[in-house]
């Protein structure tokens, strides 16, 4: 339930949707960024024009029947203004929305996934939408099917699932998407049903915004028919990530309508079997364009809801169990209702702090049978001590693929640099990683730009590295109790864990029967990593082991620094003395001189050519680290070495099982050993007899039931 913030008291009211009661302020004149209250769910949209993009889907009648319970409608818009001088925004309540007017949406209701929506008052130009209740995000599981091509231009149009896209974010280009959905009907998940009439659309001033030009950014470019290109443009808008809710929308056009680049409708329909297509018509010619899988994944993650791959099954699952599956993915959401464009696997949700995972944050109590640990721990409040950013200080760090690196090397070697320019002076490191680092490591809201070295543009596009989420989950595991008794603990059993790129670390036996989580902090600027092992006890995380290591190696940067050498040659020429320059074709002798007056521009043209030809100069930056570091096991590995007991069948009768139970002797049966028995209660026995009784009870007595 969303409570209203005490900061906003103007025109407060509340709405009840089903069992949910939402309170909010209808009108807020000014909200400073520091006043954003994370207990509130904010939505934002700019009044008057489209500045934010929202995931928006239009459902048909059949889909409404499936998911209608999860979508609610109300009315009203609310103003949000991030500063006194900023343009006011309309805040729309998460659960508000109205059925679209006929002239805007036909008879369909526009549904919207995501926590932020754009909701202007009903008007001819736009109307509001129904919004997926954030508490109901977990009641819908979308299963996308992607249609497209691998990087090979001649590859076949093929169908892959979400898992494939996750594994091949740079090797697949998506043309079409088909969406299926599982929906919770109160007692079970319905069967996977295809969303047949969902139409992604963009909300804005006009019903559909031309995709080619939004805020001056070319989201997609036009291609010739049958030509394919990848577009690595960022999907991000120009909003301020710190001061307003994040929102995003798929830049997808309606599949049955077509639009001209200027936004006017026209052209012919391009139905495609209920698939969403990135396409639009330009003067009745249909162009197909493709989006890189990586961008599509980000797009979907921004929705902040659950997706699954084709291997997922809802069989036997309910709202409490459906998410704990390696085939489920949830778009991460941070405080302030901001999705990050990052997917979290279902199996990692327990250790994730994404705020939209619902109530699935409590750790299942994993108490050893019959034991009860009685552990009392304080929350270690584990937070990273720092959050690295690649733009801290003077250094910048770029993520390069092998091809990008090759391009850089070519640039370094083949480019004629201005005299005196030494690119290597600006290169401080080159690290090689055995991983294909995902763009998750990159600044999420800065579009890729060119690598600029010392003021010279390499024309090589690369992303800056950021590390806004320094601790990354590397896996969780329920540590089994192999014996189910004292043998699972020290000194009988040892627990060791291999942390990728860090090595083996011993774990305390406190992990027995509990879930461990491994989190790794990656320092991409030095290739160093620290891996921490956590165990959750009574809902609180505790570090039980830590180990550092290296995940990459330094490698050398070498090449020709032509500009430096040419400057040296020219300087040598200038300083050699007065007189005419002695130019020899193809070579410059050591005695070549030039008149010194105001610079080397008096060197003849031929001399200049010879300078360039003789300016080869090799520079080497860095050193080469061992290659072995690149060949490390990439998964966590838990090793348990345990002792087994040889327990014969009649062990209980011969030796008795260990217990520590208080009671009357008559309450026990069979072979029993008592400790420190007080026999003073036996009245008429002699002292000798009492001692004998005590001896028998403490050495082992077999108790038969009384007749």
């Amino acid at each position, binding site marked *: 339930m969303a409570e209203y913030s005490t900061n906003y008291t103007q025109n407060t009211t509340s709405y009840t949707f089903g069992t949910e009661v939402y309170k909010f302020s209808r009108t807020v004149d000014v909200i400073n960024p520091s006043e954003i209250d994370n207990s509130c769910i904010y939505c934002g949209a700019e009044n008057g024009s489209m500045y934010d993009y929202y995931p928006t889907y239009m459902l048909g009648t059949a889909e409404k029947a499936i998911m209608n319970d999860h979508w609610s409608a109300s009315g009203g818009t609310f103003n949000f203004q991030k500063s006194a001088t900023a343009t006011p925004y309309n805040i729309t309540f998460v659960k508000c929305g109205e059925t679209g007017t006929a002239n805007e949406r036909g008879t369909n209701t526009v549904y919207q996934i995501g926590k932020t929506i754009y909701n202007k008052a009903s008007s001819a130009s736009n109307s509001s939408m129904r919004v997926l209740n954030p508490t109901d995000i977990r009641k819908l599981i979308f299963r996308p099917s992607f249609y497209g091509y691998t990087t090979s231009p001649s590859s076949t149009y093929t169908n892959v699932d979400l898992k494939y896209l996750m594994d091949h974010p740079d090797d697949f280009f998506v043309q079409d998407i088909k969406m299926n959905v599982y929906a919770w009907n109160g007692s079970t998940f319905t069967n996977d049903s295809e969303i047949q009439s969902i139409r992604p659309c963009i909300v804005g001033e006009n019903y559909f915004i031309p995709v080619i030009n939004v805020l001056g950014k070319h989201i997609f470019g036009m291609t010739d028919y049958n030509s394919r290109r990848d577009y690595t443009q960022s999907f991000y808008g120009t909003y301020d990530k710190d001061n307003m809710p994040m929102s995003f929308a798929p830049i997808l056009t309606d599949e049955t309508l077509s639009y001209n680049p200027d936004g006017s409708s026209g052209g012919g329909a391009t139905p495609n079997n209920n698939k969403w297509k990135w396409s639009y018509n330009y003067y009745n010619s249909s162009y197909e364009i493709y989006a890189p899988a990586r961008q599509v994944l980000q797009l979907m993650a921004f929705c902040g809801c659950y997706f699954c791959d084709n291997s997922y099954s809802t069989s036997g699952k309910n709202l409490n169990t459906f998410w704990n599956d390696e085939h489920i993915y949830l778009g991460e959401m941070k405080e302030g209702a901001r999705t990050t464009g990052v997917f979290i696997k279902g199996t990692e949700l327990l250790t994730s702090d994404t705020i939209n995972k619902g109530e699935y944050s409590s750790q299942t109590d994993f108490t050893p049978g019959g034991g009860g640990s009685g552990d009392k721990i304080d929350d270690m409040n584990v937070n990273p001590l720092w959050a690295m950013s690649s733009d801290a200080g003077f250094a910048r760090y770029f993520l390069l693929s092998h091809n990008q*690196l090759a391009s850089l090397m070519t640039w370094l070697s083949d480019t004629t640099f201005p005299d005196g320019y030494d690119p290597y002076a600006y290169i401080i490191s080159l690290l090689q990683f055995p991983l*294909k680092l995902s763009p998750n490591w990159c600044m999420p809201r800065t579009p890729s730009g060119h690598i600029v070295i010392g003021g010279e543009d390499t024309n090589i596009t690369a992303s800056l590295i950021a590390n806004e989420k320094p601790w990354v989950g590397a896996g969780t595991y329920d540590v089994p109790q192999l014996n189910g008794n004292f043998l699972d603990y020290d000194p*009988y059993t040892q627990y060791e864990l291999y942390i990728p790129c860090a090595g083996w670390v011993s774990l305390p036996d406190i992990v027995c029967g509990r879930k461990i989580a491994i989190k790794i902090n990656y320092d991409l600027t030095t290739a160093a990593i620290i891996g921490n092992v956590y165990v959750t006890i009574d809902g609180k995380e505790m570090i039980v082991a830590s180990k550092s290591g290296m995940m990459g190696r330094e490698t050398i940067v070498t090449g020709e620094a032509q500009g430096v050498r040419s400057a040296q040659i020219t300087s040598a020429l200038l300083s050699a003395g007065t007189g005419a320059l002695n130019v020899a074709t193809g070579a410059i002798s050591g005695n070549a001189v030039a008149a010194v007056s105001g610079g080397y521009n008096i060197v003849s043209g031929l001399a200049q050519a010879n300078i360039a030809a003789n300016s080869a100069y090799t520079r080497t930056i860095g050193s080469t680290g061992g290659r072995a570091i690149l060949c490390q096991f990439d998964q966590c*590995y838990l090793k*348990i070495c345990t002792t087994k007991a040889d327990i014969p069948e009649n062990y*209980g009768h011969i030796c008795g099982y260990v217990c520590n139970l208080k009671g009357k002797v*008559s309450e026990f*049966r069979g072979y029993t050993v008592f400790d420190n028995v007080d026999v003073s*209660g036996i009245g008429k026995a002699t002292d000798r007899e009492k001692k004998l009784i005590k001896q028998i009870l403490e050495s082992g007595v077999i108790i038969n039931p009384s007749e």
Partner: protein
Amino acid sequence: MTVTLYNCTSASNVLNKKMTKVQDNINATAKGIIDVDRPALLLDYNSVDFNYMYIQEFSRYYFVTSRALMPGQHIMISGESDPLESFKAGVRDLDALAVRNEDSSKWNKYISDPLMITVCKRETHGYKFGQMQDVAAAGDSSYILGVI
């Protein structure tokens, strides 16, 4: 003295022994002083089909430790008292702390058991899980270029 003879099949450390009566109301006489803990008696009985007895006057049970047939249909026996059976009502009513018991349901599995024999050959189990992000395909890698 009056003696009842039994055949007892239970071990000496059994509380509430299983015994079968052989003969009761047997007349017994003692020669001289009678040790209550270790009595020696002459029984008006001529068989050795017993190993346990109850002396009514002492209100105690005894293990029969020796039997000797005497001329004239008598048998000389000696015995040792069994306080566990003699005072079993009082023993059963004692409050005590049991540290071992035959019933596996009472087993506290997380208390170390020094009597449990462990096998020197240890078992090792390995479990693979999780993964570093974006593991590269063979031959693939990423680079981080640092520039100022």
